[in-house]
């Protein structure tokens, strides 16, 4: 079943001026995400990828085309409320997403707003904190948490609404490497163990590697689609969209350009293996 579907969606932040195409943040986008799938959306700053996230749960309304969540179109106002329960978004800045001073109150905020009974809220707090590995922080002050911990609380807050789709809009961009790893582990676990549909919006190539499928955006349009490996193999094309290879890719490229026939590798281990092969071949 299709969890999310964009049908020829365009969006402009300004009223479209006649004959001007550049004013579109998202332009004629078609794609769908299957239930349980993990899709990464890559693009440089200003490519339209965050607009895509906001269109997917009706924070923004498509100027043209339609967005459907489990077959329900978002264009109709009456559907919005129920659809938003299904599509949770975690944003970039951990400090902008904390609403309460105590962790459990912060997580209760969402369920309270949609009228979940009190006893049920208690259960949901426990479950969502366990899912992000923060159970022991239930009664802590949110202000005393690290960036990575705050983002995990933000994810828990979304989980407490029991969504079917989770969108992460550059949710790791402001974190240190440790915080980034924490978040990616949680996301991976939610996808693999709970079957949560994930739409990960990022400009970190390393993160996109964890996805089943990657979409590359440029100037509001989808310009590449495929498995992360397929995308990275077309690195010359990626660079034309102002996306750079991850450091490991840069190293691989330098070796290849230097005349070493290294096979494509995306982890230090794999690259070392490829190099070892080349060196033993040339000495044989």
């Amino acid at each position, binding site marked *: 079943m299709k969890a999310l579907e964009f049908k020829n969606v365009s969006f402009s932040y300004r009223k479209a001026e006649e004959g001007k195409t550049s004013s579109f943040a998202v332009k004629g986008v078609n794609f769908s995400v299957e239930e349980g799938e993990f899709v990464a959306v890559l693009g440089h*700053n200003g490519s339209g990828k965050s607009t895509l996230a906001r269109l997917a749960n009706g924070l923004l309304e498509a100027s043209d085309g339609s967005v459907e969540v489990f077959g329900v179109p978002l264009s109709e106002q009456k559907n919005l409320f129920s659809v938003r329960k299904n599509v949770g978004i975690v944003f970039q800045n951990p400090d902008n997403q904390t609403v309460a001073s105590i962790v459990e109150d912060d997580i209760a905020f969402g369920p309270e707003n949609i009228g979940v009974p009190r006893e049920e809220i208690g259960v949901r707090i426990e479950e969502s904190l366990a899912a992000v590995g923060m159970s022991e922080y239930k009664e802590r002050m949110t202000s005393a948490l*690290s960036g990575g911990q705050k983002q995990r609380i933000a994810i828990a807050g979304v989980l407490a609404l029991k969504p079917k789709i989770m969108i992460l809009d550059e949710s790791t961009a402001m974190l240190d490497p*440790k915080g980034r790893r924490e978040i990616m582990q949680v996301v991976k676990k939610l996808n693999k163990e709970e079957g949560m549909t994930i739409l990960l919006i990022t400009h970190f190539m390393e993160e996109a590697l964890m996805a089943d499928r990657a979409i590359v955006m440029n100037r509001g349009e989808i310009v590449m689609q495929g498995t992360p490996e397929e995308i990275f193999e077309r690195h010359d094309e990626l660079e034309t969209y*102002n996306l750079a*290879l991850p450091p490991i890719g840069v190293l691989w490229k330098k070796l290849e350009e230097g005349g070493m026939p290294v096979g494509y590798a995306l982890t230090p281990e794999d690259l*070392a*293996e490829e*190099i070892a092969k080349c*060196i033993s071949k*040339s000495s044989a």
Partner: protein
Amino acid sequence: MYIEVERLSYSYNPTSPSAYALKDVSLTIEEGAFFGIIGHTGSGKSTFVQHLNALITLPTAEKKFKPKKGVAYPSIRIGDFDLADKHTDWKALRSKVGIVFQYPEYQLFAESVKEDVAFGLKNFSQTPLTPEETEAHVKEALTAVGLNYEEVKDASPFDLSGGQKRRVAIAGVIVTKPEILVLDEPAAGLDPLGKREIMGLLHSLHRSWCKTIVIVSHDMDEIGENCTKVAVFADGELKFLLPPSELFLHDEELEALGLDIPTTAKVRRALKERGISVDTDFTSEDFARQILALGGRHV
């Protein structure tokens, strides 16, 4: 101007002396360095950086300071400035040591780019500047950060893209012509191209504008590629003070401190496990050269 720090300890809460943000840190940053500071969150690196232009003052520089016998007080000298002396001209120091904080674009506030950049200049100049002088300095600073003065000068800073905003914020600091420029996570939150551009900008400033650059970063690839020397902080202590070529040989100790290592160091280690040893300064350029030389030797 060099930076010389001796015996620097600092606690945010002196009544509980166990909680030191910095413990007995001594180090020198030579003029001309592209210096890196690394350490996980809470390691004391920001506290250290805030001492460099006296946002946090030394105890001996406090107005009410009364010396105790037998106490070795911390000292910081930056060129001719003695930061332990309460008579130091702090304004002059701060115009010579510029600090760009994390996400500096959040600090933009004026109605136009040129007013925003001029703000620090007006506050720091010893004699009032004429509008023409101000404009000349602002123009020079904006050009140095790679922006077209005529295009951006009257724009609202809030209408610019993320990367442009960050450039304007940096221009607002370098406009006083600091000799030392300190940047906390200058590339954080930017996309890979934006990162590359900001690092390129810092190198061009290093060549032409600020003799010494100090960056705080979590990105080990960035540190390995760019820095001439690196200080590693953990739990308020200085653990390492080495050039990257030597520092990243201590991969296991760095990882024990919860720190990452550059990609080149990871590949080097994986090669070592396969019986191939590589001698490198850990920049990707040099690493690739060394590997290619290894492959070629046998051909």
